[in-house]
């Protein structure tokens, strides 16, 4: 027996065997032996999504984006592919969120709250949500600023609320005057509308703030999975977000008070004597709300580390 | 002397400047020719080479490599390699340079008697060695 040949033979056989095993393992890993599961995700924008972007479930990659396309309405259809063995994590009530963390590449996160829910059929289409935090916070600040502008606008010297209040004063003045009832009756259609309009605006403002507060709650929850450093930038951001929420709640309750007062103002026409006092109170309350809201914007700009300059318009 | 090196292709030369392949045994050195020139199989080629060594009476050097051989053994291997080329002329170029440990005219004559080769052997040597060839 040739020892040299035996050794080379052994080496070759072992290498080929290992190569073969690795090849089979690789084919298995790449899903050659199983079906692929396809899923379409509908999104408003393909920003940040590209072929190869991973789809992760509980932090583990289970599939990836294959192609991007558009439908007739200009919406984006993202085609994703999963291995058959990973398709079980996709349920009918799963949510798909596009994550664009500050560190690392974009990825699509799958959340399946109920793993006993019916499985998603092959080739179905789901909605892709965006949780782009770095984008949303400046937007939020903008929105708060807009609200503040509104409040400011409403409460400025010659603003609507002032005018309304003046109207109310006139109306009540007239009503208490000599020709009170008649003038009041004559002027009432337009003037009553003005009052209700400004009241509606205040209500809309309050709903806005409500929505904002809800959003903040959602964002605080979302930041949870975005955070990976104990005291990194993200942690501070979450704290500021929590604070923002508190402040917004504050502003909201102030404005609610204003709303109640405005409602009172409508009744003023009926109850003339208490009118003047209430209106004075209303002014004070609205001023308070404006002050709190601008403090809030200052705070957001200060805490949010990516705001470019701390310029805030104060009323 | 250059004249010997410039001999035509149909001459098989045994010369100092045509050494054996150093990392091959004597047998393999001879077997190269049937193996790569005539495309015999490895076993067949080795058998032919061994037969050639047997014929020259040096079967025992088959597994020796060039550095392990005595000058005479080296010469025999080179000669076997030249014979197995089967060319019509065989020229031994200055045998004294290769066979410095034996009385070489007699040694070559003895090999020639064993080889039973067709064709002629020619020996080129310095004229002052001519006396050595006289018997």
């Amino acid at each position, binding site marked *: 027996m040739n020892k*040299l*040949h035996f*050794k*080379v033979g052994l*080496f*070759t056989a072992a*290498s080929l065997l*290992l*190569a073969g095993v*690795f090849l089979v*393992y*690789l084919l*298995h*890993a*790449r*899903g050659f032996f199983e079906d692929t599961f396809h899923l379409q995700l509908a999104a408003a924008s393909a920003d940040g999504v590209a072929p190869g972007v*991973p789809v992760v479930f509980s*932090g*583990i*990659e*289970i599939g990836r984006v294959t192609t991007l396309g558009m439908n007739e309405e200009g919406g984006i259809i993202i085609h994703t592919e999963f291995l058959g063995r990973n398709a079980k994590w996709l349920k009918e009530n799963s949510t798909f969120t596009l994550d664009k963390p500050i*560190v*690392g590449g974009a990825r699509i996160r799958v959340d399946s709250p109920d793993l006993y829910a019916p499985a998603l059929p092959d080739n179905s289409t789901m909605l892709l949500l965006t949780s782009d935090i770095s984008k949303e916070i400046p937007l939020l600040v903008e929105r708060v600023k807009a609200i503040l502008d509104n409040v400011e606008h409403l409460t400025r010297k010659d603003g609507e609320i002032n005018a309304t209040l003046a109207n109310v004063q006139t109306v009540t003045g007239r009503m208490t005057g000599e020709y009170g009832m008649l003038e009041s009756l004559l002027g009432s259609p337009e003037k009553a509308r003005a009052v209700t309009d400004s009241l509606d605006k205040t209500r809309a403002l309050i709903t806005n703030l409500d929505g904002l507060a809800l959003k903040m709650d959602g964002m605080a929850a979302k930041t949870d999975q975005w955070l*990976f*450093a104990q005291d*990194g930038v993200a942690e501070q951001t979450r704290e500021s977000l929590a604070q923002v929420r508190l402040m917004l709640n504050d502003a909201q309750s102030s404005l609610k008070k204003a709303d109640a007062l405005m409602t009172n103002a409508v009744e003023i026409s009926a109850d003339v004597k208490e009118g003047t006092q209430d209106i004075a109170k209303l002014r004070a309350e609205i001023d308070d709300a404006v002050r709190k809201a601008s403090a809030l914007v200052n705070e957001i700009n200060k805490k949010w580390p990516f705001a470019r300059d701390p310029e805030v318009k104060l009323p | 002397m250059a004249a010997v090196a410039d001999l035509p*292709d149909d001459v098989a*030369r045994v010369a100092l*400047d*045509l*050494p*054996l*392949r*150093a*990392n091959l045994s004597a047998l393999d050195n001879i077997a*190269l*020719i049937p*193996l*790569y*020139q005539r*495309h015999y*199989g*490895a*076993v067949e*080629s080795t058998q032919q080479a061994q037969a050639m060594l047997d014929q020259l009476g040096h079967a025992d050097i088959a597994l020796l490599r060039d550095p392990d051989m005595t000058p005479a053994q080296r010469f025999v291997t080179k000669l076997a*390699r030249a014979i197995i*080329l089967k060319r019509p002329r065989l020229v031994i170029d200055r045998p004294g340079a290769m066979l410095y440990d034996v009385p070489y005219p007699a040694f070559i004559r003895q090999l020639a008697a064993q080889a039973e080769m067709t064709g002629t052997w020619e020996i080129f040597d310095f004229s002052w060695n001519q006396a050595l060839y006289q018997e």
Partner: protein
Amino acid sequence: MNFLATSIESLGAKVVGWFTVGYGMFTFLAKAGLLLLDRTTWNRATFDVVVKQVYFTAVQILHVFLGYTLVISWLIITIILSTARDFGLTEFASEMTIRVLVLELLPFLTALFIALRSGSAINTEVALMQVNNELDALAHCKVPPMQFEFLPRLIGGVVSVVTLAGLAGLLALLMGYLTIYGMSTAGFGPYTQTIAKIFDFKIMVGLIVKCALFGLAVTLIPVTAGLETPKKLFMVPVSVLRGMMRVFFAIVAIEVVSLALKYI
């Protein structure tokens, strides 16, 4: 002026020299390739020489090589893992390990290993064959040395580098798993996923081609450098020196080109 002219001339001479070397190498490679296509090449004798070459290039050093791979892989994996942990990027650690080790570092080190051990030996041997007239003797016998001296070395080099780099890569994958997940099967799923993500068809083919080119470089260049040796014994070290420099440049060039193709 004179200085300028001489420097331009020396530059020209260098460039011509490089082209001559490159041309020599490619004609040699073309000859070897043509011989590969020849049916008479594929006989038992050639096979035996190839087996011998594979033995000397790969099998003989297998235990040393695997030990060295083990140490290098363990070190690199540990460094990458701890760095990734410090920066909070553990999720990328396994992918990084595989990319750095299996795709780049281990093939490169394998090529260097073979170049230092077998490449230099081949260069010396061919240079000595040339200086000792052994090649002339073979030419006189009308036995072309390509088939039983050079071609088997080229094949042996390619086979050895591809196989050794593959074995080292598999060992590194195993080491990576053990270092990241320990002796449990829990990480098998994610690790498989990472491997599947990295090793697509293009990468696999690229890796094998790269290793084959490494194998060719560490044998072809020494052979041609040896054949260039002037017939003077003292030129053998010079020939080996030149050959090994070229091998080193070729290995680096192959690595750089492969990286450029992969990431640019």
